[in-house]
């Protein structure tokens, strides 16, 4: 932190010197065009050449320095104090770090206490060496840049080239993220499918990852059949939630676009959007604490004696309400995109408003509405907190909405929180579930976006 502040301060100084030198290039009373670039670009050029290498050095030390120090500390210890396995050395060094930072009051393992002074010394020396190197690079880069400044020097073009590079890099981040998601999911999933065959995972009916204590039991026990999870996800997200969200969202959009006066629309639309702004954890809490008991009572009243406290219906209902504004705004856009001539034509034929909506507008806007519904489904099946808090953990294939079911996202959270041993099939299966979820939502999104786009173009 201190090193970074020093470097940035020196970089600011380099900027000021560069700007001053740039300003001094212009002869007093000389022609405006005598110097190619404005002083500020000279300053920026000097600062750029001074800061870039120094910051790179600092970043490299920040990223890899810890590992280098740890390795050297371990090799500096006498052999009898060294941890035996790589796993032990991880825990060993964690304790050393904690002791050195003052997080731990006393050493649990007496050997770590011996490593602490070595660690602290190496950390000090490493930090100092890095800072010195960075300052040296900063001075070299800055001085070299200053030596280049001449009236004809194209400082602006050089600085702009750097900005171009930054713009390009920033736009590539989105692609890198997509590939990062894909690679990490595929890579971990492949390791999972080495332990569990793909067909068992996709079509198996039994899901109980808790029994997989040892990797060699997994394949035999067949406890990673994800079909009940897929069903639970579809049941809650694509069926129950949509039974709530599609009629309500569509009717709300129809009322807002066709019936409501502008003033009413201005009041009601933000209210609907408020529903979309509430964090999902709040919906989850509401579903678990208020809706689920009511649904259970309803189940009991309907003669279903062992209605579960956590039910597909409770989670699906609340999720449906959460999705309403999403469906409604997509339907709103689709209805508004239908040309007025179509509507006026229908009115001219003597149709009432509702007849126009039902027989002309909705059919005309159908592709847009369907696209919106697909996006809504994609959002519902990827939604996590509501189902984690209200849907339960029981993986079962059931058509009864009062039963507890579990979903892909619920299981991902359950598998990856709490005590996790790395590289076990249990942990890796979460990534396989994530991959399935990503692929499905990706296909839904791409398809829906394309439908919506071609539909809009058709009317433009």
């Amino acid at each position, binding site marked *: 932190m201190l090193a970074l502040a020093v470097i940035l301060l020196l970089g600011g100084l380099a900027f000021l010197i560069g700007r001053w030198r740039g300003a001094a290039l212009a002869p007093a009373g000389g022609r405006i065009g005598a110097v190619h670039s404005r002083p500020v670009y000279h300053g920026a050029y000097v600062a750029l050449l001074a800061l870039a290498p120094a910051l790179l050095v600092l970043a490299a030390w920040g990223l890899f320095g810890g590992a280098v120090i740890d390795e050297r500390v371990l090799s500096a210890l006498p052999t009898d104090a060294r941890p035996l396995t790589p796993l032990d050395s991880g825990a060993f060094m964690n304790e050393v770090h904690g002791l050195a930072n003052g997080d731990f009051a006393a050493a649990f393992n007496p050997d770590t206490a011996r490593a602490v002074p070595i660690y602290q010394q190496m950390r000090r020396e490493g930090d100092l060496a890095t800072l010195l190197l960075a300052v040296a690079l900063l001075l070299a880069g800055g001085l070299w840049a200053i030596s280049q400044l001449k009236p004809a020097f194209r400082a602006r073009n050089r600085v702009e080239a750097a900005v171009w590079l930054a713009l390009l890099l920033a736009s590539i981040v989105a692609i890198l993220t997509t590939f990062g998601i894909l690679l990490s999911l595929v890579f971990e999933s492949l390791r999972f499918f080495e332990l569990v065959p793909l067909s068992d995972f996709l079509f198996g009916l039994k899901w109980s990852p808790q029994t997989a204590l040892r990797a060699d039991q997994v394949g035999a026990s067949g406890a990673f059949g994800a079909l009940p999870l897929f069903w639970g996800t579809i049941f809650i997200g694509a069926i129950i939630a949509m039974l709530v969200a599609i009629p*309500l969202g569509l009717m*709300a959009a129809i009322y807002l676009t066709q*019936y409501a006066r502008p003033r009413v629309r201005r009041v009601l639309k933000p209210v609907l959007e408020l*529903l979309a702004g509430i*964090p999902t*954890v*709040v919906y989850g809490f509401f579903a678990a604490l208020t809706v689920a008991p009511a649904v259970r009572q309803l189940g009991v009243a309907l003669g279903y004696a062992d209605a579960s406290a956590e039910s597909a219906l409770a989670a699906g209902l609340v999720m449906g309400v959460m999705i309403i504004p999403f469906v409604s705004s997509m339907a709103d856009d689709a209805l508004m995109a239908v040309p007025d001539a179509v509507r006026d034509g229908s009115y001219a034929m003597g149709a*009432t408003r509702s007849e126009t909506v039902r027989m002309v507008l909705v059919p005309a806007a159908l592709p847009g509405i369907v696209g919106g519904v697909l996006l809504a489904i994609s959002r519902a099946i990827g939604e996590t907190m509501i189902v984690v808090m209200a849907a339960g953990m029981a993986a079962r294939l059931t058509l009864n909405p009062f039963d507890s079911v579990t979903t892909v*996202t619920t299981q991902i959270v359950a598998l990856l929180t709490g005590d996790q041993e790395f590289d076990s099939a249990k942990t890796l299966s979460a*990534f396989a579930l994530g991959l399935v979820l990503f692929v499905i939502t990706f296909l839904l999104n791409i398809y829906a976006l394309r439908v919506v786009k071609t539909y809009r173009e058709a009317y433009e």
Partner: protein
Amino acid sequence: MSPARPLLREPTDWSAAALRVRLARRHRSERLFRLAGLGALLLAGLFLAFLLFTIIRDGASGFRHSEVAVTVTFDPQSVRSGDYVGLMQRSARALPVAGDVVSEGAWVALREAVAADPALVGQTRTMWVPARSSIDLLAKGKFDLAQPALSRGVSDADVAAWRALAAAGRLRQGFNLDFLTGSASTSPELAGIWGAALGSLLTLAITIAIAFPVGVFAAIYLQEFAPRNRWTDLIEVSINNLAAVPSIIFGLLGLAVFLNFAGLPRSAPLVGGLTLALMTLPVIVIAARAAIGAVSPGVRDAALAVGASRLQTVFDHVLPQALPGILTGTIIGMARALGETAPLLLIGMRAFVADVPHGLAAPATVLPVQIFLWSDDAQRGFIEKTSAAIIVLLLVLVLLNSLAIVLRNHFERRA
């Protein structure tokens, strides 16, 4: 005038009974349809109102707490040895009630009192200390005392203790400052949100520091400079898709890349901020592109005409005009990031931190995750804490969104 042609059919008799019936039916279905539309909106509005009502009903009491008056003799022996726990226990035992009525953490109040006023040592004072959760809830009327002891969730002994305390005038209610300034605790009466709020702040600071510059730069490139080719299409598809990818997938990405591959610390605001930055980035890019695209082409042409370079045109002339739109989009993205829970669970930001987070790399939790953890807690006292924390979170979100609306209106009027 041309000769009248013979009519092909008789003119419709609109006053005929059959047609009147048909028209009435059509008008009725029109009214029903209209009512259905209004009903859908009202249903959604009612749900929202009911949700807010239950949260406020359960949570409002979370901002108050009950205190018990305990007579404490600050004997020098206990103070010197720092045995405030024992001092508290001895003092509480002298209360005219049976059983525990003060909070496990009540001794902290004694320590703070002595630290604030060392002259207390050797004196006897009446101290108001936090009551235990069940007493607190009884005082707030959270239990239905008409029910039998087994099903009402509180023991007869506690009810008797509460009645005795109240009768002795040793119970009062006050504003629960501990809730706003405290951190996570296993005792509901001591739990506070400050630690989680600070964790949220640190996490969002990282998110905005990364997502804002990268998002705006990406938007500038795509909107102003990108050539129309396959590469640009790929970037656009990526961004549009990332905006719709489930948030939990970003959690898996953070776990695999930042924690397992790069070896960054678990539970840290640094990793949470990075993960949320990747999630918020597409939102900012899309908003910024719309804002930049809405700037009149005349501005660009004028700047280019007087000899500005393309980058000078964008940074000095287009960007300032697009800034309100960009900021609005950024605030909305930040509001979404602030309410996000699932990805942060996966990177371990559910740490129990009984203190405020110490830095960007130290274990921390955030407000929504704290809400989730409390909602999972079986202790009855956490229900009101969860609801109260939700009230705070919603208030912050309302503030953020109002800021976005004010910003938009302000600049729209000026433009």
